[in-house]
């Protein structure tokens, strides 16, 4: 057993878990953060994507103990209070989800993707970058549309902020 302490969605949390416990299971079972999902056994589906120290990570590829000391953001911590994150809002507006099971991982991966491409995204890039996230419902059509729209919204928001700062 190992003691684990880390920051999750802005809060310091700690717990004890078996050494073999995956980060995704620690989040779900110890912390009750069930928005992060498990869709496969082989780190292929991406339903468990979260942000660890600012980077998108499949939380089934990390042991919980490896995350000790890290700063983790899960789908539950993405919105700013009652205000949806632009990627969340875009998924709703563009019908980028159906059953909702892959959605948290999709949104976390998409947010990271947009952050890594401040120059903006095109369809081919979005499709290539989504390679690690599987959706069985949407055929990806509206997910791609939502990510492109969110990327635009976030770029506009960044420009507005830069202007205000200047």
């Amino acid at each position, binding site marked *: 057993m190992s003691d684990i302490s880390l920051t999750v969605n802005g809060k310091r949390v700690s717990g004890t878990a*078996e050494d*073999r416990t995956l980060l995704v299971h620690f989040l*779900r079972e110890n912390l*009750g*953060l*069930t*928005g*992060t*999902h*498990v*869709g*496969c*056994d*082989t780190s*292929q*589906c991406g*339903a468990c994507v979260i942000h660890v120290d600012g980077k998108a990570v499949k939380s089934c590829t990390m042991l919980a103990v490896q995350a000790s000391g890290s700063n983790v953001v*899960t*789908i*539950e911590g*993405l*919105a700013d209070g009652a205000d*949806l994150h632009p990627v*969340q809002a875009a*998924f*709703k*507006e563009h*019908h980028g*989800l*159906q*059953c*909702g*099971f*892959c*959605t*948290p991982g999709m*949104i976390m991966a998409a947010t990271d993707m947009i952050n890594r491409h401040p120059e903006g995204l095109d*369809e081919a890039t*979005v*499709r*290539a970058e*989504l*390679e690690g*996230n*599987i*959706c*069985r*419902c*949407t*055929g*990806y*059509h*509206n*997910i*791609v*549309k939502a990510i492109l729209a969110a990327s635009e919204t976030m770029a506009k928001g960044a420009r507005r902020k830069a202007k205000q700062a200047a």
Partner: protein
Amino acid sequence: MGIEGVGARVARKEDKRFITGAGRYVDDMVVPGMKHAAFVRSPHAHAEIKKIDVKKAQAMPGVIGVLTGKELKADGIGNLICGWMIHSKDGSPMKMGAWSPLAFDRVRYVGDAVVIVVAETKGQARDAAEAVDITYKELKAVVDAPKALERSAPQIHPEADNNLIFDWELGDSTATNAAIKAAAHVTRMKIVNNRLVPNAMEPRAALGYYDKAEDHYTCWTTSQNPHLARLVMSAFYNVAPENKLRVIAPDVGGGFGSKIYIYPEEIICLWASKKTGVPVKWVADRTESFLTDAHGRDHVSTVEMAFDKDHRITGLKVDTIANLGAYMSLFSSCVPTYLYATLLSGQYDIPAIHANVRAVYTNTAPVDAYRGAGRPEATYLLERTMETAARELGVSPAELRRKNFITSFPHQTPVIMNYDAGDYAASLDAAMAASDYAGFAKRKAAAADRGKLRGIGMSSYIEACGLAPSAAVGSLGAGVGLWESAEVRVNAVGTIEVLTGSHSHGQGHETTFAQLVSQRFGVPIDSVSIVHGDTDKVQMGMGSYGSRSGAVGMSAVAKALDKVEAKAKKIAAHLLEADEGDIVIENGALKVTGTDKSVPWFQMALAAYTAHNLPGGMEPGLKETSFYDPSNFTFPAGCYVCEVEIDPETGVTEIVQFVAADDFGNIINPMIVEGQVHGGVAQGIGQALLEGTRYDASGQLLTASYMDYTMPRADDLPSFKVSTSNTPCPGNPLGIKGCGEAGAIGSPPAVINAITDAIGITDIAMPASPSTVWAAIRATKH
């Protein structure tokens, strides 16, 4: 159409919980005292169980119980059943082999459940499962359906000689043979429809809780039809009487058919909860899902299509062998029969059709309905044959189809179905225009300049949805009626709850069903809540599959709304001292037409519950129920055009354009309908290009993970061009046909027709993976 009414592109109400991580799936459920289960499964495709030794496992840390099939039998838990009786052409009933939820004497496929281990943690349950010692005597296995019919094949069930479950036929054999004999041209093909694994992203799960004090069971399960689960577990599996069993299907992460059936695990978790005295949760891992979720398709067919000298189809003869796997799953028998052969007329006027279907046991996972269920197999067979016929006859595939289209309705086919409405030429024209079909030759030449092979293919599909008139399906062997129920409760403050037997697992019912109510009463959709998925809340229902929620489920809601509307108008007329025939409902108020007298909706509702001033003899309250039984199937139809570019050096196929033109009748929410088409088309393209289920000769599933089974990913697919036309369905009050399966039905032949066109060959196996395509191109050069 109001801004939230029928036809409006309303964003989904249910999305908020899903995009914020607040969805509630079975694996998210926690019950006090809950423990975890793991199953010991057969590693062999076919073996006798000689001995099960659980002693070592029982002594492992955290273990609460290790239970076997013998104990399950001793407690009277029943065998799993197939709920649709099919009779062979000699009149004998289908040969259903015994399927014990936990195997105790013989295992028949890799993944067959043998022992359940319940422990404090999932990890401990798995560790202990590894310590269960089972001695098997391996038997010869067979995985291929035609081979299973050979005399030398191993016998899988004692009930089914030669592994033949039934040998069934439909249509007129004499007339069809005569048409083929007299034909000016006959196109003959062998058609293989590849086995698929449904792969809903949420793995199956069950949480069984036995309440000793109340002698009552609760089952949370990943189900598309919780009421049917309760009915079957009560009536056939002897888990508990219906009034002592509550089944809850909360948020369910996709189904595609695979979550219709009642599997061994939910039965066993309920039973194990009583045996161990703790709530028992089991969640499949992905490999368990690959091994044990009901698979789809797996047909091998031969087809003969006869034409007269004017290229009109005069007859169609089909012989199909359907692989049903190791056991007969709940609806497995109706898929290759009444959901398949009844659609073999397609969109065409064919005077004579005969189909023979042999269903066969093999040592593979059970096969049952997967998105489309029978109709994709019929469409693939027909549309591949039409394409080949057009090439053989030297005519345009579009014009050959157009010449044979059914153009007047109702149309009685020779294979049971009576098509009620459609305009097949409209879909064909729309698809050809959207795909710039006329400009293809130019694009092909441009591709050739770049060293690429470009091809175009089309598919005109029809399907039967809205399952189904209960008496009709009953006469064909169904063990259940296929109506749907709805209850509309208007609260005293005017807000509305709609309880439906339909189940949403991605379809967006919480929005579309509310749109229907909003349209009727002019109330905002936020004041309408849709309740589903809980047998304690909704009295009875038949669930969601076969694209039936709109045509049947919403029709039931519409019928209940009729009753609510009639009573509301009576109350309003009484309050307004007007004639009830003069009351109209507009913008959330009941008005006397032609006057300025009105009563707001909520005041009418309050009056119904205060009951201070109701018409004489009227009961207080405002709640109405309807059970709606459809009068016919519905017949969505459309035309899909696929254009591909193949790199001859690598065999990689790129889908450069995909056009879908569908006729779904009336549409409640176009945004949601388009989403259904996108998803269905992606699954169809997956079947055509990527998804191959491979067993080796010994019955080991080689493709049991996402490392081995190619799921369609974002970079395998284009954005789709979708459009709809509308011939309203005359058979239900809303004119809805259903849209859930069309994409998966219509797309595979369009893709394969495009690939064979690009390479210049007659046929290629699905999935047309790069290596298959590359080999096919090489073969054309020798």
